[in-house]
């Protein structure tokens, strides 16, 4: 059985003082974070919060201020060499439309040293994607399957998924994550996902980052989340008493009051009502509403 203790290996991704300006506007305000190997990281935030900009900085797609190291290299300077060991799917399917599937595989075999065509073909078994098909004739779901098959056939150390299931129906989304977990994730691989559908991946994550207006307002392991944050369905007569303990969020609906507490002992909260762990979406809403002070 594997030891759950953290090793002191170098982090896969490391950012210090990551800033990004577009013209005069500062989009990212000096982010600091490390992503250790073997984790499944979620990055959640509203549109325009800076998720994609952060990812772009990590993938060498954009310049930035501060320091970013991915697998020990500066991604902006070394994007091409980094992409041997980093794979990413960004947003909408972007595979070359004019190629046939087998032509795409042949191309990848020749330009990507870590692409295994046999594996990619294997991942396509059981799908409707045929080798002779032209990519532009595939449905959106099939392109997503193909892109995932390609990415999973690359022996990468870091896989970055930027809204990978956007616009896909539920069957494809389930299949997508199932495939990832079943056939791809190992202790040596690290996964970084951004998505709006937080609930879908909540239990897959080992760590979570919330980003709001270019700042990281939460960065912790999922285990820590469940021990630090509590949600209470407060009985009406206890609302005042509960409020005195300083919830970070409170919402009353149909006469029921739900409150979220940060760092308050569960035993103390039990007297007010049912205590549960907030879901990530509940927590997200709670933290997004809060003012800038942490």
């Amino acid at each position, binding site marked *: *059985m*594997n030891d*759950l203790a953290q090793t002191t290996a170098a982090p896969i991704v490391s950012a210090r003082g990551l800033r990004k300006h577009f013209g005069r506007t500062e989009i990212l305000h000096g982010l600091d974070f490390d992503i250790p190997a073997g984790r*499944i990281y979620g990055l959640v935030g509203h549109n325009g919060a800076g998720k994609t900009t952060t990812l772009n900085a990590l993938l060498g797609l954009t310049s930035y201020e501060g320091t970013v190291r991915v697998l020990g290299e500066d991604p902006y300077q070394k994007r091409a060499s980094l992409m041997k060991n980093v794979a990413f799917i960004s947003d909408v399917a972007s595979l070359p439309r004019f190629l046939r599937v087998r032509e795409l595989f042949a191309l990848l075999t020749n330009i990507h040293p870590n692409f295994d065509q046999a594996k990619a073909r294997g991942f396509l078994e059981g799908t409707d994607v045929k080798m002779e098909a032209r990519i532009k004739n595939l449905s959106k779901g099939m392109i997503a399957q193909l892109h995932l098959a390609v990415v999973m056939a690359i022996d990468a150390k870091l896989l970055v998924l930027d809204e990978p299931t956007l616009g896909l129906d539920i069957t494809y989304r*389930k299949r997508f*994550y*199932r*495939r990832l*977990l*079943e056939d791809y*994730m190992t202790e040596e691989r690290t996964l970084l996902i951004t998505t709006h559908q937080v*609930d*879908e*991946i909540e*239990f*897959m*994550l*080992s760590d979570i980052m919330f980003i709001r207006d270019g700042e990281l307002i939460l960065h912790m392991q*999922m*285990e820590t989340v*469940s021990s630090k944050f509590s*949600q209470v369905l407060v009985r009406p007569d206890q609302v005042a008493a509960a409020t005195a303990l300083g919830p970070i969020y409170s919402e009353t609906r149909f006469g029921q009051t739900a409150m979220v507490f940060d760092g308050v002992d569960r035993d103390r909260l039990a007297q007010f009502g*049912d*205590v*549960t*762990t*907030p*879901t990530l979406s509940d927590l997200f809403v709670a933290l997004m509403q809060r003012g800038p002070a942490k």
Partner: protein
Amino acid sequence: MSQFNDSQPIFVQIGERIADMILSKTTKEGEALPSVRQISADLSVNPLTVTRAYQSLVDIGVVESRRGMGMFVAEGGHQRLLAHERQKFLTEEWPRVMARLAALDLDPTQLLKQGGKDE
């Protein structure tokens, strides 16, 4: 999506499901249990969480990990699990039930008799 309740940690809930499989003898001693990867994919859960669930069962000697082959129900595992669950029931759940009966002013002996009759 909400196949897990929100009051217990996920690894505990997964551990209980695996324990159920063993208790009900769906998986017998010496037989293979689903792999970490398999469970992780089936439930869309982080593999580390599944590992943790299995670890808790390994710690009480119910499950053993065989190198390169996966997780198996240990010899005598069923007995050990039964003993463990009984212990847990008697120290945690049973006292709670008794307290509740007392609070509702119900006589347990009466209940058992009635329960038997109405069956």
